[in-house]
């Protein structure tokens, strides 16, 4: 039996600081096994990012619980094993005078531990991911001077520099051109072969169909959670019901895209 990495039990969440206190998530139950590639899909405002933030401990759990490696998320300590790329990476300080190299190295902060500075091995790890993401020539550039897509690749590199066993990606390819998106998913495929557990929030149904092992459809409630094969058996009417508006699948090449 495969080892469970994430287990979400009866999870509900309400943003209490918002005027209309409607629940963002209600009674979510999910399991992600080791080496699994789970795609979380759903319309805007459906609670996908809220779920990710609860898993990562960026929001406090109100109802239900989340287990990571069998431990309650609050007691989980090995956060250096988790790589995270946030939505559009808009959380960083714009205009920050830091080079790409400094930003990528900062991903090793937790793994390195307190009171230790970076050594040759850390620099080698940095160079490895810069090459992997095709941004080695940007190493000495200021992060603020990069395009949105380049910036996003830097954050992906930061998430991968620790060689994480768990990757949490919240729409990581927003703003990245088609070639680099393809290369990014090639990297994910390689990581998956190395038994890295991947949790991906995305709007790109084509990627879901092509890459994910399992799919979770969320729109406040968990409407579907199952294998990719079962997800592909859902017809457009069922998907439209989840999204709350009419959905058509438009196929091009081997992918199928979701549009309203």
């Amino acid at each position: 039996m495969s080892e469970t990495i994430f287990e979400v039990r009866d999870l509900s969440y309400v943003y209490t600081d918002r005027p209309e206190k409607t629940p963002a998530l209600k009674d979510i139950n999910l399991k992600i096994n080791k080496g699994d590639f789970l795609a979380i899909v759903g319309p805007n405002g459906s609670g996908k990012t809220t779920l990710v933030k609860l898993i990562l401990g960026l929001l406090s759990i109100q109802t239900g619980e989340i287990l990571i490696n069998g431990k309650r998320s609050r007691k989980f300590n090995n956060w250096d094993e988790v790589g995270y790329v946030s939505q559009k990476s808009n959380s960083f300080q714009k205009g920050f005078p830091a080079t790409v190299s400094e930003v990528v190295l900062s991903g090793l902060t937790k793994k390195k531990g307190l009171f230790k500075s970076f050594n040759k091995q850390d620099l080698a790890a940095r160079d490895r991911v810069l090459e992997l993401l095709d941004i080695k020539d940007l190493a000495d550039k200021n992060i603020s001077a990069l395009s949105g897509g380049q910036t996003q690749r830097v954050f992906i590199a930061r998430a991968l520099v620790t060689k994480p066993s768990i990757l949490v990606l919240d729409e990581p390819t927003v703003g990245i051109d088609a070639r680099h998106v393809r290369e990014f998913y090639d990297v994910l495929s390689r990581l998956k072969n190395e038994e890295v557990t991947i949790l991906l929030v995305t709007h790109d149904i084509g990627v879901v169909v092509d890459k994910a092992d399992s799919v979770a459809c969320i729109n406040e409630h968990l409407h579907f959670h199952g294998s990719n094969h079962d997800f592909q058996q859902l017809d457009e009417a069922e998907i439209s019901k989840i999204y709350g508006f009419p959905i058509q699948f438009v196929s091009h090449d081997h992918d199928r895209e979701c549009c309203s």
Partner: protein
Amino acid sequence: MIEAFLTFDFIRYSVLSGLIVGIIAPLIGAFIVIRRLSLIADALSHVTLGGIAFGVWLSSIFAVTINPLVTGIVFSVIGALGIERLRTVYSNYKELAIPIIMSAGIAMGIVLLSMADGINNNLFAYLFGSISAVGKTDFYLIAIIAVIVCLFIFILYKELFLLSFDEEYANVMKAPKWIQIAFIIVVALVISASMRIVGILLVSALMTLPVASAMRVTSSFKQLMFVSVIFGEIAVILGLVASYYLSISPGGTIVLVSLLILLATVLKKSNHKQRGELDDQSV
């Protein structure tokens, strides 16, 4: 001035303290500016004023000598912890913590200044700095604070970098919460140390202006810290020399030199831009 430096202790203490402050203020200022917390320095300096008044008041009540810098440091650290607490209480309006603590500092300062007889004589020196106000004890306190600040930044550089650059990612990585509290206490210590030289009203300028200038000419964070310190030192040295020969408060002269440096970096960058645009047109 060199002769005076060699002859008079107070000049020596002032110059050496100025040189120390010229390093530590921009060094910690780099993190403050980047985290968009520049006004924290202002808030804490006003709290420090309250602490100084409290020290003078205690001295007058109990007829004992209490170094006002010590009570200033204590108040500043308490104010720093207050800001941190309020930033948690008002998590969606974190900037509210600064005006709350700042007004508390000013109010306390006014009340205690009124109660403390004798502070009026020194008030000008506290507000705008003084070249003759730094005594031996002050100098040693400033030197100890400098050692603490440098060790703090050296030892926790990578954690401070991550916290400053991307607080959300630092939270995902579960960066220890005490670093944030220790950081704000260190800021309070630097403010207390700098206050004797540049004065309460201008202390934040020495923490932010050299960094603002360095931001125009650097691309990495380590460069930013290094160039900020260079600019800070230039401002302190030229400011102290001007203060000595013109017999005016060093706070004003130091900050004016800092402003000139800022102006030079702004103009330099604008010229570069213009030249770049002209080059583009000629192609």
